């Protein structure tokens, strides 16, 4: 079949929900095939007669398709290539598109000839618990030898290593009724609720809604079931309050009617169209939910039941009826239930040769196929099924040649979502399966998910559930007239295990867990369901044991002599199917990882060539390099010198600003801050310190009194939100009786620091002439509202972080960029220089001001030299606990200034302080450097630090030990204020 696509030898001439007018070429393992629109990758491979799809996890056994739906454990393939390569994709849910590239996994060098298949003969090595036993000794071998070896041998595909080129997003939906699954129960529920006008969201995993109505040859009202489903979908499309979401899987059930769902928006195309996401994660809030998620068919446990060609009977019917693809030409059907006869009949109708229907139950059937009372005890074949060995009830053994074995052990409801709140499934002896137990509030279960295994019962249950939801919501709803269903028979007597099997008998196909592994776990004492699961890893693969878990529990129950009911299930946790990390991240990647905030004058800073840095959500100018400045240090030195010698302008808009008003505003401040406010006059500002109730420093800033009952509070940039929330808490929870109102105005005001000996001259040039800025009229710590020369309203605060004669000028945010340009233009003759965060930091360290590094949440007012600020005349947040002996202990690390003894030496924040001549070990630690900067004013590095009994040790020499940077620097301990300790510059 070289060159050109194959001819789809197993495709039926007619029938099925595929579009033969739309052939699609695709490649699997480098070979080109053709399928049709409406195919899955799995059905197209079936149609092309491809049976071998992968190698198993531990033993590298050849594997083919087991299922036709999302529960598939074997047929995991890698899709696409390059950065879009995605491993572990279930071929059964991959919608075929032209140009699809798929590759099998877990084989080397090729699927048909796999070197590591020798693992099969090493079976005992890989038995239950092998992780815990085989590779434990010697310990040093684990990382270097065992782990790489196991990963190579027992892998699950290769991930793409490049960044994902596709986009993902998150979305929200709200509805009265969420219907999960568009099979007979879901369609009936959605129709009933939709006709009553409820807002309905119907979600289906498939690209073709209808569930098993698409897969069976049943007649509804005398027409093929698929036509009834299509008509129902068409009607739902016409109902204005109903929304149908295809290709969407509900992956989790959360509190109060919240569900998570993954929509595969463009997975069925080679790549998403521009500006559209590949997948979308939904958070759905509903008032009621009808879970109509259907059921999973169980494999039967007999020898070598994993051979390619052994397939679930329901999947065989799906491939034949929905996809017109015949899984085998010569088939044996092995079932412990009445659907064996249905399967045999469907295969005959599709043109297959059904050579035997094997059923352990003795009741004879009348399907025109030879019926054998007995069991298949072994599948025979190498890379694919060649025959079966049948043990008849009379004790005789027969071998029958075949290329397909359709098996069915009955159905298990897909009840994961019912158990996400801890509800335990309950055992139903009549149906021989677990059914949903205690349900999450607002959820009802209908159809096969609730054990209604006939179409007729499922349709009726869907209607009942929707009527109940409508009634609960106060809607009048009428039952939908249901179609008549052709006769169904679902008699079942679970076989669980075939006795006397030969060969390996698999329970969990994806994790290669066999009956013998469960037996071993039981012998070694792992008798609880959860223990057995972890020891054998049954149910822990990417399929989470959808086809395996009940069979595993049945085997464990039999070995422990308990009932299945007493054995119980393991815990179900979200997500129900694997969810890509990209979908969980949504748009939060790279620069959009979190919101980015820009100040009003950002464009101006960009023009000035600023280098920006992130401070919380803000992007702030770090420094403004000029030509000829090789590193940031030259730029920062220039900015500091220019500010200290002339005047500098810095954007400080990111500070938190809170406007506080009301007759009790002063009293409120008294309770919030450690220091007093009663003496603060209108038109004046004061530094304030806030504690947490545990006595630690929370934040600092200034408070300016703008009017009799009006104050403006500033906070640090980092704590702007936290302080506002804290104030809300204090007001609403502690002191609702205080008559105050406050609002954050951080975003409303742009604010600029104007600092340096020529600051007043600069302001004089921009402030309207009528305002007196003289030292007498507007002294240090003055605050007021004024007008600029262009009539902009501004607030002026004569406060200083740099230690210079300085002001902060605040203007409405929309005027920010204009005003900063005005300041720069007016300051040009004075030598004005923009400065960034680095210069700001260097100057505040020169001045000994604390900032975020010192306000770490672990420092007290005493530690930072603010002990005298703590009022003893009033109560305030933190007052009582700040007085605790341990928080005022002079032995605590307290604020000091630090300068290198060798003036050329450099040291950095984070270095630990130890005594000279002492081994730098943790026990000798006496504190650490909190902030450090090169001081252009002093010409050497300086720092602030917290040192045990620091204020008593000025003049002493200590060692800054910095193993991270490989530095050990001798430092002199000194007063933290390096520049202008008397504060004369502030007051000129």
């Amino acid at each position, binding site marked *: 079949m070289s060159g050109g696509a194959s001819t789809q030898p197993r495709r039926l001439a007619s029938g099925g929900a595929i579009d033969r007018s739309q052939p699609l070429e695709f490649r699997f393992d480098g070979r080109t095939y053709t399928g049709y629109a409406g195919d899955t990758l799995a059905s197209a491979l079936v149609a092309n007669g491809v049976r071998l799809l992968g190698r198993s996890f531990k033993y590298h056994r050849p594997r083919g398709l087991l299922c036709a739906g999302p529960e598939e454990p074997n047929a995991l393939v890698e899709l696409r290539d390059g950065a879009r390569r995605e491993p572990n994709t279930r071929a059964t849910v991959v919608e075929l598109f032209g140009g699809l590239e798929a590759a099998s996994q877990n084989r080397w060098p090729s699927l048909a000839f796999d070197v590591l298949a020798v693992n099969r003969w090493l079976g005992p090595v890989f038995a239950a618990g092998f992780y815990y036993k085989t590779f434990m000794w010697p310990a040093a071998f684990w990382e270097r030898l065992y782990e790489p070896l196991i990963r190579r041998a027992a892998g699950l595909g290769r991930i793409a290593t490049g960044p994902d080129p596709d986009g993902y997003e998150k979305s929200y939906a709200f509805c009265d009724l969420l219907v999960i699954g568009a099979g007979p129960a879901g369609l009936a529920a959605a129709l009933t609720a939709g006709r009553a006008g409820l807002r309905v969201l119907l979600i289906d995993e498939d690209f073709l809604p209808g569930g098993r109505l698409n897969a069976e040859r049943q007649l509804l009202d005398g027409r093929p079931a698929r036509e009834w489903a299509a008509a129902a979908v068409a009607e739902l499309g016409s109902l204005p309050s109903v929304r149908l979401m295809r290709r969407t899987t509900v992956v989790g059930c959360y509190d109060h009617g*919240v569900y998570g769902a993954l929509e595969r928006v463009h997975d069925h195309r080679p790549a998403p169209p521009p500006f559209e996401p590949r997948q979308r994660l939904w958070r759905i809030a509903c008032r009621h939910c009808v879970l109509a998620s259907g059921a999973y068919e169980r494999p039967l446990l007999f020898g070598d039941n994993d051979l390619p060609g052994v397939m679930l009977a329901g999947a065989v019917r799906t491939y034949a009826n929905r996809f017109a693809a015949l899984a085998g030409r010569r088939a044996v059907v092995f079932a412990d239930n009445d659907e064996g006869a249905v399967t045999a009949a469907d295969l005959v109708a599709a043109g297959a040769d059904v050579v035997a229907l094997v059923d352990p139950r003795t009741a004879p059937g009348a399907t025109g196929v030879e019926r054998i009372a007995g069991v298949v005890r072994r599948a025979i074949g190498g890379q694919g099924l060649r025959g079966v060995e049948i043990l008849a009830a009379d004790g005789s053994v027969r071998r029958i040649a075949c290329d397909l074995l359709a098996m069915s052990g009955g159905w298990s409801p897909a009840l994961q979502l019912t158990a996400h709140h801890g509800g335990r499934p309950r055992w139903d002896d009549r149906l021989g399966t677990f059914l949903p137990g205690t349900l999450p509030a607002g959820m009802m279960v209908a159809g096969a998910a609730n054990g209604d295994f006939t179409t007729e019962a499922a349709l009726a249950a869907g209607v009942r559930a929707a009527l109940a939801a409508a009634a609960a919501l106060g809607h009048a709803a009428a039952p939908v007239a249901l179609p008549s269903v052709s006769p169904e028979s679902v008699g079942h007597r679970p076989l669980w295990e075939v006795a006397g099997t030969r060969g390996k008998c698999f329970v969990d196909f994806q994790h290669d867990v066999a009956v013998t592994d469960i037996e071993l776990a039981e012998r070694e004492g792992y008798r609880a369901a959860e223990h057995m699961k972890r020891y054998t890893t049954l149910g822990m693969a990417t399929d989470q044991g959808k086809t395996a878990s009940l069979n595993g529990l049945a085997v464990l129950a039999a070995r422990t002599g308990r009932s299945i009911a007493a054995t119980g299930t393991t815990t179900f946790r979200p997500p129900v199917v694997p969810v890509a990390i990209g979908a969980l991240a949504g748009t939060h990647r790279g620069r959009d990882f979190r919101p980015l905030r820009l100040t009003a004058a950002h464009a101006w800073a960009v023009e000035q060539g600023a280098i920006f840095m992130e401070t919380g959500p803000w992007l702030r100018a770090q420094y403004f390099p000029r030509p000829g400045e090789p590193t940031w240090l030259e730029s920062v030195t220039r900015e500091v010198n220019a500010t200290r010698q002339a005047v500098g302008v810095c954007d400080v808009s990111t500070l938190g600003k809170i406007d506080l008003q009301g007759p009790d505003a002063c009293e409120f401040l008294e309770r919030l801050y450690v220091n007093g406010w009663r003496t603060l006059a209108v038109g004046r500002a004061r530094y304030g310190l806030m504690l947490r109730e545990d006595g630690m420093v929370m934040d600092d800033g200034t408070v300016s009194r703008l009017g009799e009952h009006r104050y403006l509070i500033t906070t640090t940039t980092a704590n702007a939100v936290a302080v506002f*929330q804290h104030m*809300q808490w204090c007001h*609403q*929870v502690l*002191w609702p*009786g205080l008559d105050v109102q406050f609002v954050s105005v951080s975003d409303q005001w742009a604010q600029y620091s104007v600092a340096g000996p020529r600051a007043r001259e600069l302001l004089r040039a921009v402030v309207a002439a009528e305002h007196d800025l003289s030292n007498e009229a507007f002294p240090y710590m003055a605050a007021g509202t004024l007008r600029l020369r262009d009539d902009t309203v501004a607030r002026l605060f004569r406060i200083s972080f740099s230690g210079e004669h300085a002001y902060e000028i605040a203007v409405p945010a929309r005027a920010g960029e204009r005003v900063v340009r005005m300041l720069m233009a007016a300051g040009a003759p004075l030598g004005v220089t923009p400065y960034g965060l680095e210069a700001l930091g260097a100057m505040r360290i020169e001045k000994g001001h604390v900032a975020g590094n010192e306000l770490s949440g672990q420092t007290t007012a005493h530690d930072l030299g603010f002990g005298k600020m703590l009022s003893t005349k009033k*109560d305030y947040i933190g007052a009582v*606990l700040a007085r605790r002996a341990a928080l005022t202990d002079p032995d605590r690390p307290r604020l000091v200034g630090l300068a290198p003894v060798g003036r050329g030496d450099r040291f950095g924040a984070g270095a630990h302080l130890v005594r000279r001549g002492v081994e730098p070990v943790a026990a000798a630690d006496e504190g650490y450097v909190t902030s450090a900067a090169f001081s252009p004013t002093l010409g050497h590095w300086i720092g602030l630090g917290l040192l045990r009994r620091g204020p008593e040790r000025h003049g002493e020499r200590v060692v800054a030990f910095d193993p991270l940077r490989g530095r050990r620097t001798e430092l002199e301990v000194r007063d933290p204020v390096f520049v202008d300790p008397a504060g004369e510059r502030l007051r000129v």
Partner: protein
Amino acid sequence: MRIPCPHCGLRGHEEFAYLGDATLRRPDPAAPDAERAFAEYAYRRDNPAGRHRELWYHAQGCGTWLVVERDTLTHEIGRVTEAREQGGS
């Protein structure tokens, strides 16, 4: 979870900030055992299984501190009131 805010209606829990026990009262700072009482108030918390009264802040909404009655076992939410109605410490 979805929390019925008295001002904003039923909203997702991601809009709220959680603080904890709403039954605590700030002790009298002038009482002789104030330090012990404040230490209890600042650090000690019960961890009840069942009905609990909790403070939630509608940070992404109206900015109201709420007292939410919530069952810590089932997440069932009962009465939701404004914290200011408790009358303060």
